[in-house]
């Protein structure tokens, strides 16, 4: 089963009255357990693709489904419920809730999804332990290093055991050591069967994935396995052209 599937996906923004075509017909299929890197220069539409996959934005045209469920035509609330069940998001700048402790940040998605606080905190402790942040549970996110903050964001993304983790430039705000830490974590998660779509403009980072989807000017330009391909990779990609 494809955890993410887009067909002819288009997105046009209005910027100061001028239409900006961010996506110009994108077809992407990501299989269960796959680790895909979406690569391209700034403004190529990769973050827009991620936002559409997360249900944070709606496409102008085309189809998009996550875990076999179409996102098109769903209202904002339905998309939010969809995110609770299937999607974990990791942002470049962490987007942690600074007012909450490390533990509370991780527990919150599960609480929102309907878990009891006890269950949510238990799961959060497990995740923090797994990600090496157990001793920081009561700390404020603000005192963590960049790498730790991103690991915390990843823990939060995993709180509801999502079908798909979407990561937007997860190493973009980190130093080399922090970036390596995060990539190693993604590899471990992937090895455990977690489906991941990671947006990056860094070829070295992208190399950590099973497959690289290259984008340019709102289109898929190329899709090829990195040097060391994962045996589970089942790559399909194509780019549609403008009508």
């Amino acid at each position, binding site marked *: 089963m494809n955890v993410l599937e887009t067909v002819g996906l288009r997105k046009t923004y209005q910027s100061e009255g001028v239409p900006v075509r961010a996506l110009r017909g994108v077809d992407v299929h990501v299989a269960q357990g796959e680790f895909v890197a979406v690569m391209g220069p700034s403004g190529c539409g990769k973050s827009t693709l991620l936002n559409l996959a*997360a249900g*944070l934005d709606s496409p102008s045209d085309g189809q998009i489904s996550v875990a076999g469920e179409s996102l098109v035509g769903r209202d*904002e609330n339905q998309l939010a419920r969809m995110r609770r069940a299937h999607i974990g998001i990791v942002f470049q700048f962490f987007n*942690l*809730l*600074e*007012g909450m402790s490390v533990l509370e940040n991780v527990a919150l998605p599960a*609480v*929102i999804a309907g878990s009891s*606080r006890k269950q949510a905190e238990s799961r959060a402790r497990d995740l923090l332990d797994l990600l090496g942040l157990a001793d920081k549970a009561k700390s404020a996110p603000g005192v963590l290093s960049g790498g730790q903050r991103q690991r915390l964001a990843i823990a939060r993304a995993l709180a509801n055991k999502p079908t798909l983790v979407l990561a937007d430039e997860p190493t973009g705000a980190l130093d080399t050591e922090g970036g390596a830490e995060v990539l190693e974590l993604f590899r471990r998660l992937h090895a455990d069967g977690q489906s991941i779509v990671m947006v990056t403009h860094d070829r070295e980072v992208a190399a950590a994935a099973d497959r690289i989807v290259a984008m340019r000017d709102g289109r898929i330009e190329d899709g090829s396995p990195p040097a060391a391909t994962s045996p589970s990779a089942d790559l399909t990609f194509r780019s549609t052209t403008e009508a």
Partner: protein
Amino acid sequence: MTAVWACVRTDLRSRRRAWLGLALIVGLAGAVVLTAAAAARRTDTALPRFMVASRAPDALISPQGNGLGDFDADVAKLPEVADLGEVAGTPLVGIDAQGHVDPQLASPPASVDGRVGYDIYRPNVLSGRMPRPDRETEVLAIGTTAKRLHLKVGSRLTLVELSAEENNTNSFDPRRDHPRHTFTVVGVATMVDDVATRPAASGTHNLLLTPAWFKAHGDPSNLGYSGAFVRLRPGADLARLRQEVDQVASRHPEAGSGVFFSTYADRYRAERRFTRSQAVALGLFAVLAGAAALLIVGQAMTRHLASGAADHPTLRALGMARGQVLAASMIPAAGAASAGAVLAAGLAALASPLGPVGTARLAEPHPGVAVNLGLLGVGASVIAALLAAWVALPAWRTASAAEPASGASSGTATGWAGSVTRAVERSGLPPSAAVGARMALEPGRARTAVPVRSAVVGSVLGLAALVAAFCFVTDLGHLVSTPHLYGTTWDLGLDAQSGFGSFSPDQVGAVLASAPDVAASAGGQYGSLTIGGRAVAAVGLDDLRGHLFPTLLEGRRPAGPDEIVLGTNTLRRAHRSVGQSVDVDAGAGARPMRIVGRAVFPALGRGDFSATDLGEGAATTAAVLASPDAPPGSYNFMLLRLAPGADRHAAIVRLGQTAAGSGCVPGQCPAVTPRPADMQSFASVRWTPVVLAGLLALLAAATIGHALVTSVRRRRRDLAILKTLGFVRRQVSAAVAWQATTLVGLALLVGIPLGLATGRWGWALFARQLGVGSETSFPALAVLVMVPTALVVANLVSALPARSAGLTRPALVLRSE
């Protein structure tokens, strides 16, 4: 300094509109505060200014006979007397639609010598003009009479002239052919002593007739009364003046056997207390509005400063000293505050015709625009200084920053706030509640900073003030509606000729014989005592049946002529306590009397003249105040307490019939003893504290609204994150509603006990000042209603910010942030 000015110029160029907007907000908020403060000042000074403009009399000297002419001329020569004007009660009366004498249109006074109303005791003409002294048909309508009879400039009024016989017996024979006099109202006015404490039924405050009318129609043998309004020289000895007046009277047999001598000082004090209470209320409003405005505008300025502080680390790195960065921040802020303060003063000057407020408006001798340069100047300076001081510390902090605020410090809720948020999280309430509680109590840092503390403090203070006000109002209402608390331990009072006459022993006996359902009765004498050089309204009381005396707070009633009971304030002014002696002059020289008790006095006094008033007054046995020629057992008034279950209405009818021939004025006797003047004053402004506290609560609601709006705007990133984590729109909106609920919940938890304690303390203080007992009650209903009302209001206030939060578009926000 060049670098500082360069920074200032850049700031003003790039944020000109924002600074102008802030100056405008300062101007508008400051104008409200300064307008209220100026109006409070004008309200407070209106009466004293009116007294000066009026050339208010210090005393009325009214002999039982005719004092016009020689007697008054001799009084005018006394060393204590600075000025004097003659007045006479005319034998005219108004007849109502039923053909009865209208007590409020009885014996209107005429200015005999053209001085009263013109040179002395000048009224404040609210509309029209003073009657011309040489026009006999022109009349001035005064105070409540004008209002009650709808008299305006140009109104015509016809009065009938009673015969001397009718006048002497307080009767009116409708079959008789009475001369009629028609007048034209040329002005409506207020007298200096009835601005606030209006006489209920009076022949002295209804109309003022001209000297021309008196010259043409006045008959010395047919007058309601005659008297002289007297202005005293500074430091005049009242006791000595009374003795001298009695000596003058002894040389003028036409003046009769006794002289009624009434000073106006107590009355002016009561008036002043009343207008001052309104001024204090307005002044309090100014202070509260100023505090709230400082809180809100100060926060806005602080945030505006903080938003411009991003460049400070760069400026420091470039070599600017901390003081220079501080100056670059403070100069535009101080400029905006100063410009706003000047604008506030200008707007307050334009709004000055709004003052004075309340009844003091009647006393304002110069209505219209009045610019109090001193107050506005000081006020504007204080506004500018306070705002500058408010932003100085945050400006100093941002000027000290060597690195940009990164948000590394979380600004999380700690201490009690952290405990509250954790309690909410563990309470099993939905996630939106926990998030809302956090948003309510976490101040945040840098770009996510929200005025949490001011919202919490503001809402706590607003609700505490409201609860305290309800406590106060409940206690005041209890006092106003519970006669024994303000001294009245009887049901009805009977005055012989408004207290100027006497019930003979036979008449007293007849009244008691006709009233088997009277459980207790006392006979009394009105009078005045000089205690410590001050005139004190007094009553002398003897039990006639059972025991009856005003409410005693301490000690016992006087048992003999050497004992006296004083009101709390009178006692305080005499620097004495119960058990001690005090020198008292009842007209025959000072002598020591033992203070045996402290009492609360209702309004007991002759006609409109000096009456006892809660903590003001004295009580003795009747003999102390009885005139030397009065037969034993005669009294100016009687007090009656009905037996439980007695038919009050029937008693009033029966007593009225019995006493009709005994000097009881029909329509005024028997009557319920009026509440003391202070009680009437405070009853009329009873809800003022609630209105003021309500305003404060409104400001608190505005503070909460401001905090919510700020929170939603500054935390939109957090709201967007919540949405990415799965919050639906309704949950985001609910979080904001919970934020408001948390703030108000806290305010209720802290504000209600704080308000109850403050209200009780305030009432105890107030009661002590009034001279009544400090019995308190609990405003249970108000508190019960306040809890859900506050929560509903908070949620209503949160409705718009909550909707706005719900509409947060995470992709857009997270991209732009």
